[in-house]
């Protein structure tokens, strides 16, 4: 299939304006005739549902948690970017655009990124008007901080709980529409499949997680705002429930999956403490503003950090990257930490850690100032590790954090299945091969508040007056049967290993072969193993209990089954991309200094994979990337 990204013509700064003028509109009286299904209540889903409700559409909104307010976005700590230039430090829409394209290692679509930078300023206005308690200066105006990969202070924050406050703002706007009768919420409801009929998305099939009921919902358009798939690695900073099922099922029904191998490893997480480890906890990247990262100069130095004199410490980021120092982008910081650990200079259990030290900052600014900035993060660290970071340096190590890949969408955020949209982390747009800090919240809210509500009308207007498909139609019942069959099969297998056991095994394989570093050899190894593991999962998994009740093992089993399929595609994509770029680091392709070496001639494209039913043989579709406003350079943070 020829991919049409539908990028408007004209100068980059005018494209979004032009698009909004060219897109068809649905008049206010007709909006209420449409029913839109939105899966997800994170920043992307909640903001979209609220805004579409305000516009007058009928919206049904789904999430698997018990309340919309608990979506994974709640956990974001550090902040949200916007090109407000309140600090008068040279920021602008163009600079935010430029930084994001560069930070993504030139693997994102220029037009989308520019639009993101344009609407970033509206997000801050909207959130402030909703009562989001952003941090303020004594004069009463909004405060900013700088964040990894940027030389300007453009990040807005609400203590260490920015995601929570932005999500509560969106959730409250959503609840206002629930009260107004425009949005119907379905919490504890998991989408298990997409219904496509005559080439268009017509609805979804869900399971009620309290009663086990499987049923269909018909809509005029379906929006997936279901988040990222970092949990394919088992251990990640994502919430335990985060999963790929909705996006993966859509992929199997025709939506292309773009750049699945682009995953982000976050440099500052609390290291693993034992094999019972169930997730990894992020320590916000904002800590790198004041903390200094170091390891002992001598390999195997097991003295306590406070006993190691200044002269025997290596502040390796400051040494290797004098211009950016501790603020180099995430991928660079993560790989640098891995290198120290590989060289035997890592600290803590298994040598899988480096120090993040606040002693200088506390001396310079005082403990109160540091507590005001990071108090809750320090407390969290102490609760988890038992160490007090005001006195001993934190130990940190990289962990899987974010997935840049996702469903392929055009400029209007529509997937390759007409009528199916994807917003927020679940799509692939905007971040290229690496996401900059504080840009995911921005993208989720840009998509939900400002982009989708403008673009979705274009599709709906073309289907004005058409009947919605009844859920009694065989298009729905066939898929319901499919879903019931899958559920039954998982319950009947009654094998010998638990779901988590399989998930851990898959995660470890992916971390080793398709994690921070990948090689053709390792990826081939993984590709040989994954189908075997998947086969064993379906033969030998043990899921107890019934399907007409709360059954958390069953929920997990369905998600892990889909991770097994996605994992294969990730490795195929990683093997195909015979270059290094951003978070995708192929050991065969590095500069003499050990940085990612791109191959723009051969890989300056989006890899959009089409499902053929044979997971070993997906079809690759390429969307070439044109750069007219940004000059491609080798990223350099020296």
């Amino acid at each position: 299939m020829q991919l049409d990204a539908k990028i408007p013509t004209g100068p980059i700064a005018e494209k979004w304006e032009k698009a909004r003028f060219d897109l068809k509109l649905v008049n206010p009286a007709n909006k209420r005739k449409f029913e839109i299904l939105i899966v997800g209540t994170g920043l992307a889903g909640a903001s979209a549902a609220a805004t579409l409700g305000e516009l007058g559409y009928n919206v049904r909104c789904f999430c698997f948690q018990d309340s919309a307010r608990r979506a994974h976005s709640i956990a974001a700590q550090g902040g949200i970017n916007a090109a407000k230039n309140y600090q008068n430090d040279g920021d602008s829409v163009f600079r935010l655009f430029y930084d994001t394209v560069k930070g993504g290692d030139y693997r994102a679509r220029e037009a989308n990124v520019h639009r993101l930078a344009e609407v970033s300023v509206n997000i801050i206005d909207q959130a402030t008007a909703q009562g989001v308690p952003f941090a303020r200066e004594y004069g009463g105006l909004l405060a900013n901080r700088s964040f990894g990969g940027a030389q300007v202070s453009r990040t807005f924050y609400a203590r260490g709980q920015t995601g929570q406050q932005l999500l509560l703002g969106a959730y409250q706007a959503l609840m206002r529409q629930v009260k107004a009768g425009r949005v119907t919420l379905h919490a504890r409801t998991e989408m298990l499949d997409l219904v496509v009929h005559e080439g268009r998305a017509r609805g979804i099939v869900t399971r009620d997680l309290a009663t086990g009921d499987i049923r269909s919902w018909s809509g005029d358009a379906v929006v997936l705002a279901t988040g990222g798939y970092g949990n394919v690695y088992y251990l990640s900073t994502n919430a335990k429930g985060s999963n790929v099922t909705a996006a993966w099922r859509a992929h199997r029904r025709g939506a292309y999956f773009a750049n699945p191998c682009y995953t982000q490893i976050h440099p500052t997480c609390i290291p693993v403490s034992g094999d019972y480890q169930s997730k990894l906890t992020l320590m916000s990247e904002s800590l790198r503003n004041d903390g200094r990262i170091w390891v002992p100069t001598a390999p195997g130095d097991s003295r306590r950090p406070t006993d190691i004199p200044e002269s025997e410490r290596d502040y390796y980021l400051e040494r290797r990257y004098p211009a950016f120092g501790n603020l180099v982008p995430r991928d660079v910081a993560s790989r640098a930490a891995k290198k120290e650990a590989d060289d035997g200079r890592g600290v803590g259990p298994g040598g899988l850690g480096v120090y993040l030290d606040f002693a200088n900052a506390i001396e310079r600014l005082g403990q109160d100032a540091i507590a005001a900035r990071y108090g809750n993060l320090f407390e969290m660290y102490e609760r988890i590790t038992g160490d007090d970071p005001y006195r001993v340096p934190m130990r940190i190590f990289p962990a899987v954090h974010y997935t840049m890949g996702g469903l392929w969408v055009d400029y209007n955020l529509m997937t390759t299945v007409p009528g199916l949209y994807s917003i927020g982390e679940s799509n692939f747009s905007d971040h290229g091969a690496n996401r900059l800090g504080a840009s995911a919240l921005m993208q989720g809210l840009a998509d939900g508040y400002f982009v989708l509500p403008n673009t979705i009308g274009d599709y709906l207007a073309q289907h004005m007056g058409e009947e919605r498909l009844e859920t009694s139609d065989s298009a729905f019942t066939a898929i319901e049967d499919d879903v019931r069959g899958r559920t039954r099969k998982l319950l009947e297998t009654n094998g010998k290993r638990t779901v988590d056991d399989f998930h851990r095994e898959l995660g470890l394989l992916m971390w080793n072969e398709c994690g921070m570093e990948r090689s053709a050899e390792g990826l081939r190894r993984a590709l040989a193993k994954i189908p075997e593991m998947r086969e064993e999962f379906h033969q030998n998994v043990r899921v107890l209990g019934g399907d007409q009740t709360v059954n958390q093992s069953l929920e997990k089993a369905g998600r892990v089954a889909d991770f097994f399929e996605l994992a294969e595609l990730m490795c195929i994509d990683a093997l195909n991309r015979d270059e290094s770029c951003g978070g995708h680091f192929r050991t065969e392709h590095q500069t003499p200094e050990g940085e990612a070496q791109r191959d723009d001639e051969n890989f300056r494209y989006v890899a959009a994979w089409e499902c053929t039913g044979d997971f070993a043989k997906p079809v690759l579709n390429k969307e070439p990337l044109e750069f007219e406003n940004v000059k491609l350079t080798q990223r350099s943070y020296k």
Partner: protein
Amino acid sequence: MDLTLYVWRQAGPDAAGEMKRYEAQGMSPDMSFLEMLDVVNERLILEGEEPIVFEHDCREGICGACGMVINGVAHGPQRATTTCQLHMRQFNDGDTIYIEPWRSTAFPVLRDLMVDRSSFDRIIEAGGYVSVSTGSARDANEIPVPKADADSAMDAAACIGCGACVAACPNGAAQLFTSAKVAHLGLLPQGQPERLSRTRAMVAVMEDEAFGSCTNHRECEAVCPKQISVDYIARLNRDYLKAQLLDPNAK
């Protein structure tokens, strides 16, 4: 460490429940409380018994999904800590631990340790927002907000909606939850136009739900993992009184 657990098992909303005894051997003090339960559950599954159902998601103390009464205290023995952030180093080898769901008529048990907290959503739905539609906002810096007000609003806004306050209250009251939202929005200039009507609407729904009334036991504040202060309840009462008399939006 070796522990003895007594865990509330209840097959469904209408089923009778009971405390069941489990031996949890060989646990590490560095585990989180939920990781300890994960290990117990893995063993149960292999022995053919259905795992203990409990709610959780972020495991970082921010989503508000987790929550159980541990040895009689909502979220367990460590102050200002959600169940998911509680670590086993807070316990001793040989301890017996009693684990129960939130107990409150407003939060019916769905299964084992999982309860239905949708009543909280309905309180927010009644008015826990600023009515501002997308796109109509002015520049964020047009209205300066004194830092102290913004900070105090943030203190209140830190509520994660876990329900520990209700579970700990002898009356099962939801005053701390409701007052935190009323204060968060009422402390900011953006929240002023609807301040009194919001208070009335939220209190009305709170009273319609199965929550009890507040008689100042302050148990809520003691267990709140985000240390939300009962001062907000006093503020709620003042705003409510004012709203009864003065709400310009009341019909």
